[in-house]
């Protein structure tokens, strides 16, 4: 069966007054016009058709009037099911939502707002990310909106556009498969994959110029910094490590107590400090790791990239700004 619900656009356009919106930019919703909903029988639907054919031939052969009636009722139900399957997607509106930045190697959680302005519910709608195959299934109640999360693997730093998303449904009978594509204007910022490494020694920072290390009195507890394999176990902040919600605390989750005399530095993290032999991506990864470590250590840190300089600071938004600069560095 071809696509019975695709009809002359001029004709239906006049009836429904809907252009088929591709991608309303600026956060607008994409409405799945019924001309963009495709439908074909599923494999189960073909089996259903075969069953009906057998029932029909049996009814003819044995001249069973009620056999005809039952077969035709099932056929009519198949037709009604086809229309309802298409309806389950038609006029659904999809809106791109916020996507929090993630590190490369993690899953970008794309949020899609699905809103159903109709008086019927739309169960079992599968969203499938065309490029990665990530998928999720949602039920949308009548006259309501719901959010669907698509976890798309983020491979590389930079902007990750969502791209095409397929919406598919087989409700209510499973005999037909209706689908449609949307391309919401949504992208996710992907930070470089942080490399677990020790913070740069203050000396090297100082050499690079601009880093001021405040030396304090000896033996006074002055703060925490990221654990380094060479740290004495007596200096590990075990209480903090125990609070960590990851079961298998990795070494870069552990903190080392710092005492005055250690460097609590105002760090400058500079791409040029790292040997060019490492390659750009690895250097950016190391810088990202340093940003995290510095943030954990409570240090004030600044970031210097060719063409970009972020003044020293601390806190969530500073961290995000630094990581964002690393992510988008050309």
């Amino acid at each position, binding site marked *: 069966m071809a696509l019975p619900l695709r009809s002359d656009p001029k004709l239906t356009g006049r009836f429904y007054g809907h252009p088929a919106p591709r991608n309303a930019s600026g956060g607008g919703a994409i409405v799945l016009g019924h001309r963009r909903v495709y439908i074909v029988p599923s494999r189960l639907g073909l089996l259903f058709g075969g069953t009906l054919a*057998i029932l029909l031939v049996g009814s003819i052969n044995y001249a069973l009037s*009620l056999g005809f009636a*039952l077969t035709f009722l*099932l*056929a009519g139900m198949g037709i*009604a099911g086809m229309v309802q399957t298409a309806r389950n997607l038609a006029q659904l509106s999809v809106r791109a939502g916020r996507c929090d930045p993630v590190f490369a190697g993690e899953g970008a959680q794309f949020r899609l707002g699905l809103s159903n302005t109709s008086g019927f519910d739309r169960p079992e709608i599968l969203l499938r990310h065309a490029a990665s195959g990530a998928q999720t299934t949602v039920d949308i109640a009548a006259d309501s909106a719901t959010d669907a999360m698509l976890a798309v693997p983020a491979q590389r730093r930079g902007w990750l556009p969502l791209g095409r998303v397929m919406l598919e449904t*087989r409700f209510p009978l499973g005999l037909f498969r209706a689908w449609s594509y949307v391309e919401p204007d949504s992208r996710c910022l992907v930070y470089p994959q942080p490399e677990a490494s020790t913070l740069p020694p203050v000396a090297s920072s100082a050499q690079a110029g601009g880093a001021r290390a405040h030396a304090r009195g000896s033996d006074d507890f002055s703060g925490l910094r990221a654990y380094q394999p060479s740290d004495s176990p007596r200096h590990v902040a075990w209480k903090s490590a125990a609070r960590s919600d990851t079961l298998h605390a990795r070494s870069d989750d552990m903190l080392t107590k710092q005492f005055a005399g250690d460097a609590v530095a105002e760090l400058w993290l500079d791409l040029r400090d790292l040997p060019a032999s490492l390659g750009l991506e690895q250097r950016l990864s190391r810088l990202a790791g340093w940003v995290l470590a510095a943030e954990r250590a409570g240090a004030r840190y600044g970031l210097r990239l060719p063409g970009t300089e972020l003044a020293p600071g601390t806190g969530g938004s500073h961290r995000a700004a630094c990581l964002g600069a690393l992510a988008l560095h050309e």
Partner: protein
Amino acid sequence: MSSSAPAAIESAPLAPAARPIDGRDLLVLVAGLLIVVVPHALRAPWWLTLLTLALYGWRATALSTRGGRGLLPSSWMLLAVALLASAGVWLEYRAIFGRTPGIMLLVLFSGLKLLESRNQRDAAAVVFLTWFLAITNFLYTQSIPTAIGMFAAVGTSVLALVGFAAPRRAPLANLRTARRLLAQAVPAALALFLLFPRVQGPLWGLPQDAYAGMSGLSDSMTPGSLSQLTLSDAIAFRVEFQGEAPRRRSLYWRGPVMVDFDGRTWRLGSPGFADLQPPSDGTRFEYAVLLEPHNRNWLFALEAPASLPERARYLDDGQIVTLQPVRARMRYEMASVVEGTPNAAEASRNLRRAQRLPPGFNPRARALAEGWRDASKDDTEVLARAIDYFRRERLQYTTEPPLLGRDSIDEFLFVTRQGFCEHFSSAFVFLMRAAGVPARVVTGYQGGDLNPVDGKFTVRQSDAHAWTEVFLPARGWIRVDPTALSVPMRVDDGLARSVPASDSLPLLMRSDLEWLRTLRNNWEALTSQWNLLVLGYNPDRQRELMSWFGMRDADWLGLASTLLAVLGAFVLVLFAWMLRRVARPDPVQASWNLFCRKLGARGLVRLPQEGPRDYSERAASNLPSANEAIRRIAALYIALRYGNNASPGEVVELRRMVRELQIG
């Protein structure tokens, strides 16, 4: 924070093979299956019924253990059960491919398939099997109760299908969906039922036992065969007269004619096709017969036929036959003449055959007949003596006649003196032939009950009767009913009043159950409409209906194109109707569009790169008189469009403000 692992991809794939089935939906599936299997189970051998129910029970029990996945048998075990049970079916029926054994195997496989169902695809296959089993029930009966039961089963299985597709949805919502699906299916089903090009089956040879269980008259008559038949309350046919109906004593429905006798059994002769020669005088009655299938070629007609139904043939012994056995309920219209003068001509070959008797049987009856022959001057006088004999002898009429030996007619006439109509007619024809007068046994039905509800006559198997015809030169074949001669009440009042009260009769034939008869009359009037309109819809009726709609000589191409047009229109209308509540523009956007049009009319057309904020600012500074309203509308629009929580009240407010916006 950085270490949070990628969130597990939540997924419920839609491919049926990957979707496990929920216990709730499985129980619905079993319920549907039970409805279709119960009528079969009543016909099945007990062990098969028990085995099938055990298989269903096993699957249902497995639901409650280990989260629905416990205790299911291995496929080897299922195969072993399948083979053993198939062997059992073969032992029971000595066949695998007949109708009944085939259905029994299907019943069994439904249990096995259910037991191995673990995902949506398997369960859907069980649903399809349920439909198949539902239709096989119609091979046995297409009555109203069966129809209700099977359609209920289909509804149940559709609910199961919806459940498989949406296992997390509330059962009530799924029920509503299933109900809506079936309701929406009705118009399409009706169009298909009426317009689908019908062909007359069968398409291929049917199994030997395909029509077992259809009752009716047979092509031979032995003592006891008719009295067995009259114990059945089943309907043979129903008749609707146009206008007045004949009197009850004239209602002789002629069927197969028995000519050959071997001393015990009467058999059909070998009549040839002939032209119908209706009697020249008498009263003409026109009527329609709705004949139940009986798997024989003959049709029943009131004596004597004056016109033939379509596609029926007339035989020279007065039978009306079709070329194909009547295997589906059949309606035919014809006319008959009652109490007319029969045709006097008959081929001498047929007359000689109607005088033949096997030698060496029934010496006392022979002697009696020869005595009449000697004392009479012609055949008419012999007949008069015979009639007189039957009137005088007061032979007793009973549905439970004693068993008779080799000389059955001698024993009936002179020893037991009790018999049913086959004894009376058999003895009379024997006597006539022994006296040299051509005679034959005619079987058929006598009488019929008028149903006051719909004014139709119902003729039942219990009205089966046998009478005789005697040939007199110059007068032709004359009907003589020897039963009526001895027991006049049989013809005037029916069987129930003519036999002793101790004789067994169908329950509803007893005249003391008046209320039950009223109930039955209503039910049968309903059934008759059902038979005529639903079950009797065949290629002929379809042609009639089409010509009524102005399609003369509708061929299958015309029907198919009409059907496709109707179905196409149905799909479009259904889709438009189902989206009627959604097919309206977003109200927020509609208000904004109206706002832009109003400003555009004042020359302030929104530029393509202009967002709502810039546009409204430009408009507000250009139209100082309305700048307050313009700013408020834009702010509300931006909040509704890009904000997260829009309340319906705000949408209404935006529409009101845009509508009331006065510019200049």
